[in-house]
């Protein structure tokens, strides 16, 4: 049924067209789809629209202008055809002609108005869209102390506009695709033509064209799963950002960005592990401070994975500790085994994280109190936990919150739990093999033909230096080789 109608063309008879439109759009059934018939120069003209998605004032101006035609032109004396006169009179700079019902319907459903003129087998789509939505505001997940406060919104047009504001280069391209049989979501591939790797652009374009799905309900996340081969891999294989300045910085480096309508997060490809441990704030501070912040962050991320298993190892095998560190480890055996305590505490923190996501603000203060007092203090007094457990679980939880990428922090949590279990069962070999497997797993991961653990393995000294030290921007002269830029110099 659907495919049959895809190629159906408009006919010169306006009555026939009206019937088909009524049938396909459900006019008379759906309350928000309708048409208005005007009589212009003795011809009937239908205007199809959907309420709620277009600018009413603008539509009224167009109708007024069209009706004025009746006063200034005379049907018989006019040398031009009526549809030409009408097209010329549409007060808008974005007018498109189309001859298929499918295209016209998509435009109507996107919020455009479609004008059908009697005796003419094409329709005019006029862009009078005005989507309900918010204006740009600072994204919650990527705040900076100083600097621009605008963030992407749910509207793709606003998003491309915000990007263009930062990249005025005429080589910036936004290729538009429509994905989803039923959702018909607009998706834009953004790249700078003479910088980005054309092979990568083509690969992404092909993957997007091959997407067969009825709707992109979780927009960019749904699409991400079609682009990268996630399988059982918990690590985030692409980076999301809601900040136009971060997106444009990546465009300059030669990355390809995918913007999906209805989502404020854009996808940055290709991505490596180390893209997830950097933050815009580091570039808002002086290079030295930025480097310091970055190192502290690296320690936090390292602690969020390895501190807990390491402490567990020392708590269960105190003989491993050098004499200077002998105070580490619980002074008295608790009532339950340490590994069980760690698991309860760690999963308890996870309870709080999950709960905090959807707790209303009014209740969250109470939740914080319950969490801090009950779980922290009472659990120790009752004898459930030894105090040290709370300390180390808290440090590793803070380390996870200090991870700039939310997705990475959750993936690291899984890694931590597995290594904790390995350490509990096998002691030193469990921890060492866990560490080795963690690194081998990251090395083995490939995202869009890009090694995930670059530049550590495969090793690239210059890029690694760039990650360990946040360089002053004037000294940062080359684009990262990982994106295979066509032009690897930043300033020539």
């Amino acid at each position, binding site marked *: 049924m659907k495919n049959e109608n895809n190629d159906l063309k408009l006919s010169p008879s306006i009555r026939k067209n009206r019937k088909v439109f009524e049938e396909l759009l459900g006019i008379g059934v759906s309350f928000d789809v309708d048409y208005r018939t005007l009589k212009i120069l003795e011809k009937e003209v239908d205007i199809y629209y959907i309420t709620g998605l277009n600018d009413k004032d603008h539509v009224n101006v167009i109708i007024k202008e069209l009706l004025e035609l009746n006063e200034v032109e005379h049907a018989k004396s006019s040398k031009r055809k009526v549809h030409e006169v009408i097209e010329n009179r549409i007060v808008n700079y974005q007018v498109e002609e189309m001859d298929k019902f499918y295209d016209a319907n998509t435009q109507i459903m996107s919020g455009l108005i479609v004008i059908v003129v009697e005796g003419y087998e094409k329709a005019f789509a006029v862009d009078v869209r005005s989507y309900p939505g918010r204006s740009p505001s600072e994204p919650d997940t990527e705040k900076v102390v100083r600097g621009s406060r605008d963030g992407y919104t749910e509207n793709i047009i606003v998003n491309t506009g915000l990007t263009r504001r930062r990249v005025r280069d005429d080589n910036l391209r936004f290729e538009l695709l429509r994905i989803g049989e039923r959702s018909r979501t607009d998706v834009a591939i953004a790249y700078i033509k003479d910088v980005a790797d054309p*092979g990568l652009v083509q690969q992404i374009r092909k993957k997007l064209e091959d997407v067969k799905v009825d709707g992109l309900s979780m927009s960019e996340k749904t699409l991400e799963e079609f682009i990268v081969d996630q399988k059982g891999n918990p690590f985030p294989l692409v980076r999301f950002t809601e900040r136009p300045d971060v997106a444009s910085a990546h465009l300059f480096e030669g990355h390809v960005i995918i913007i999906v309508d209805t989502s404020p997060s854009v996808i940055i490809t290709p991505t490596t592990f180390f893209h997830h441990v950097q933050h815009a704030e580091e570039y808002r501070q002086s290079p030295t401070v930025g480097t310091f912040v970055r190192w502290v962050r690296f320690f936090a991320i390292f602690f969020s994975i390895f501190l807990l298993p390491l402490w567990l190892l020392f708590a269960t095998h105190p003989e491993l500790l050098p004499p200077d560190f002998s105070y580490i480890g619980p002074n008295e055996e608790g009532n339950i085994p340490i590994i069980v305590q760690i698991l309860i505490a760690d999963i308890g923190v996870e309870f709080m994280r999950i709960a905090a996501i959807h707790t209303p603000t009014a209740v969250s203060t109470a939740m914080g109190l319950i969490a801090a007092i009950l779980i922290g203090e009472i659990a120790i007094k009752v004898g459930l936990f030894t105090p040290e457990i709370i300390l180390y679980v808290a440090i590793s939880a803070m380390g996870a919150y200090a991870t700039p990428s939310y997705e990475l922090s959750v993936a690291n949590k899984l890694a931590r739990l597995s290594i904790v279990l390995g350490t509990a069962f096998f002691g030193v*070999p469990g921890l060492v093999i866990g560490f080795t497997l963690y690194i081998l797993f990251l*090395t083995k991961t490939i995202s869009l033909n890009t090694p995930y653990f670059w530049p550590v393995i*495969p090793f690239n000294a210059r890029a690694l230096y760039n990650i360990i030290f946040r360089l002053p921007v004037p000294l940062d002269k080359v684009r990262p080789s990982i994106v*295979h830029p066509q032009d690897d110099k930043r300033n020539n």
Partner: protein
Amino acid sequence: MAKQEERQSSVFLKSLFCGAAGGFIWGIVSSIAYFFSFSEVSHASFILRTFFSGSWTEGWMGELISLCILTILAIIPALIYYLLFKQMHGIMPGILYGIGLWVIIFYFLNPLFYFVPPLNEMTMDTIVTTACQFVLYGVFVGYTISYEHHDRRIVPKSSQNEA
């Protein structure tokens, strides 16, 4: 053609450099593991303590001197990998190469190092810890060399840059 040769020589130098860097990074890891008694031996046991005696070989000074020597010695396995296995793909050859190196040093060359206990007297902890270090070094060197050799591509003849 000249460009091709230039590239090859750059890959060669990069391979040697990555061998040294690998020795340095995993040498530090080895010292840390020794410090926390994960392993009874560190690189200093092989390089310094076998040939010299004295308290300076024991502390962090000994580890540091040994780390410098290890960094230079670690070029040799990278050179061998470059000459023999650079055509390989993926991380598996690196893992096997690392295990191979470990077997050579800990089993066949073991009698040379008087300070290192024979394999059958080592604890399981030591064996696992050192083997893991060698595996990581092997992957580090092997994956890097094959990545550089294949023109910084993971998949052979990938579509990138051809369009």
